[in-house]
């Protein structure tokens, strides 16, 4: 997994609450059995004026000029600014794959749906929680300035504005450590293989019906 330490970059806005994972990556792309290539379909319904599919060449499709990610000022953005309950709905990890594949490294919002939040960390993608009033301030600053950038420092747990104002954010220590070091969580868990086997032996004695094959 790609490690995450410091990221500085252009910020793009998505000014809607309750953005669901169907909106982040619509169902037709879930038929892909790959983990990559979803970036061009990110926010597909909002981003394009015509309907796409896995077998339609995106180069032939019409972009929606009103959608933020299609505007020149947000080209190359690596940080997404969003509202409450981002990533609600379906568990599809494709939502995170699409955001990361598009080039986003982090999202900042006041709150997230649990499964999306969890999926993010498995993909070197950082979901940052900042209070709603701070997020509102960032939306205003972003609207006022072309090429607005933020700097994220994960080890220090800060988001810093161009004028040097830092905002602290909270993050679970285990998730932070995995992300900073780019660790493979399965490999880490398998270091506890004996504990898993001990548990199974104990549980099988108590509740044998759970281990009938």
């Amino acid at each position, binding site marked *: 997994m790609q490690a995450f330490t410091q990221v500085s970059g252009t910020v793009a806005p998505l000014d*809607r*609450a*309750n953005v*669901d994972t*169907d*909106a982040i990556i*619509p*169902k*037709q792309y*879930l*038929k*892909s*059995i*790959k*983990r990559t290539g979803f970036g061009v379909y990110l926010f597909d*319904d909002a981003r394009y004026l015509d*309907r796409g599919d*896995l077998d339609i060449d995106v180069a032939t499709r019409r972009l929606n000029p009103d959608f933020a990610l299609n505007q020149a000022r947000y080209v190359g953005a690596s940080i997404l600014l969003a*509202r*409450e*309950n981002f990533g*609600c*709905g*379906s*568990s*599809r*990890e*494709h939502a*995170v794959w699409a955001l990361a594949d598009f080039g986003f490294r982090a999202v900042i919002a006041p*709150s997230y*749906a*649990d*499964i999306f939040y*969890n*999926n993010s960390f*498995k*993909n070197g993608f950082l979901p940052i929680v900042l209070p709603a009033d701070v997020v509102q301030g960032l939306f205003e600053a972003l609207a006022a300035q072309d090429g607005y950038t933020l700097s994220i420092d994960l080890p220090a747990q800060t988001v810093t504005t161009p004028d040097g104002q830092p905002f602290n954010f909270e993050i*679970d*220590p*285990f998730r932070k450590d995995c992300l900073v070091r780019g660790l*493979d*969580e*399965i490999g880490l*868990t*398998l270091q*506890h*293989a004996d*504990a*898993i086997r001990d*548990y*199974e032996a104990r*549980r099988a004695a*108590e*509740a*044998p*019906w*759970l*281990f*009938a*094959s």
Partner: protein
Amino acid sequence: MTTQTLYDKLWQAHVVRDNGDGSALIYIDRHLLHEVTSPQAFDGLRLNARLPWRLAANLAVADHNVPTTDRSLGIADPISRTQVEALDSNCAEYGITEFQMNDARQGIVHVIGPEQGATLPGMTVVCGDSHTSTHGAFGALAFGIGTSEVEHALATQTLVLKKAKNMRVAVRGQVAPGITAKDIVLAIIGQIGTAGGTGHAIEFAGEAITALSMEGRMTVCNMAIEAGARAGLIAVDQTTIDYVRGRPFSPKGEALAKAIPYWQSLHSDAMAVFDTEVMIDGSTIKPQVTWGTSPEMVLPVDGHVPDPAREADPTRRQGIERALQYMGLTANMPVTDIVIDKVFIGSCTNARIEDMRAAAKVVAGKRVAGNVKLAMIVPGSGLVKRQAEQEGLDQIFRAAGFEWREPGCSMCLGMNADQLSPGERCASTSNRNFEGRQGAGGRTHLVSPAMAAAAAVAGHFVDIRSF
């Protein structure tokens, strides 16, 4: 030890290792797989030369992409076909039990788990699908996971989890005749909002919940995720045990005798403390219809579509305006004036035998209204379909002008050919009314099976209590 919630008990029974930072390695008893969220996980296993930890814990089925029309010729869409074939070959390669598309036991993953007895009280149940919360109806800790976690569960039979907070939603008293589990859960979501349960496991309790059948309880827990909670739970009682007994995967004989006392302990203790408590008076719940693009945008059938001008909060006002525009509705119009184009009775929320019976009762001897272009019934599994046919329900539906289809997810999310066209309005028994969920530009109103059936006959929403 007399102050634990059901969730606390389930959590504690599955801790393999406490990480000491609020997270723990949690053992997974049952892992259900389907074709959409598993291929990348199997690739991950292959890439790292890892094997499934405990094969018997896994059960797979193809449900999202399968056609609901004649299957004898296979899947026409080559991309869908590839995905289903990938599941077949992955299961064959690793030796995982799979119900393939033409197996009589095939169906929606959250319908077949309980139906087979693969979901048991006290288990941890995971699946790469957010509606895994359904299985919480059995007093099991069940929740949806992403594909990386599917790989983690396959390879280690565990997940690294953070303990959720405890929430109890008590529905007191009894609901009025005609009010179903779907109305109860939509009313709950209307009250607490789609983020109301975020970070929590919700235990549904109260007389109105206890009075539900297992089918009804599954409908309620199914939509816990729509209230923001990864897991929904209902305490085990005699109804649970009676349902579980005698199913193919459930314990028998001595094992069953040993299991029952344990299952009976799966309830919150009388003195258990919840972080959040919500109380709803069941007698006040009316038939529910969603009007907007989020499950919390819901109204009683005798209500009126909201007026954004009356909403003071600007973000909420914008949300209402946007939803009205997308849904093609006018502020203040009565819900019963909403005219529909299609009807979908199916999905893991409402495609069990009880749902089929409720819909059939409403349509018996009647006809689908002329303005309804398509009314379809998609049973949740092959076994539900067979049972319904034995009871003659398919004949009732067909005579009324419904299409009687093969089991699968179908128009709940339209990954197969069953979709809404732009602008089409659907009375749907599924769980999500997000923009484009049932087809790009499609408009979804979530209702109970009885309300969907009544809408099919009337051509618009009607109050089932006076239908």
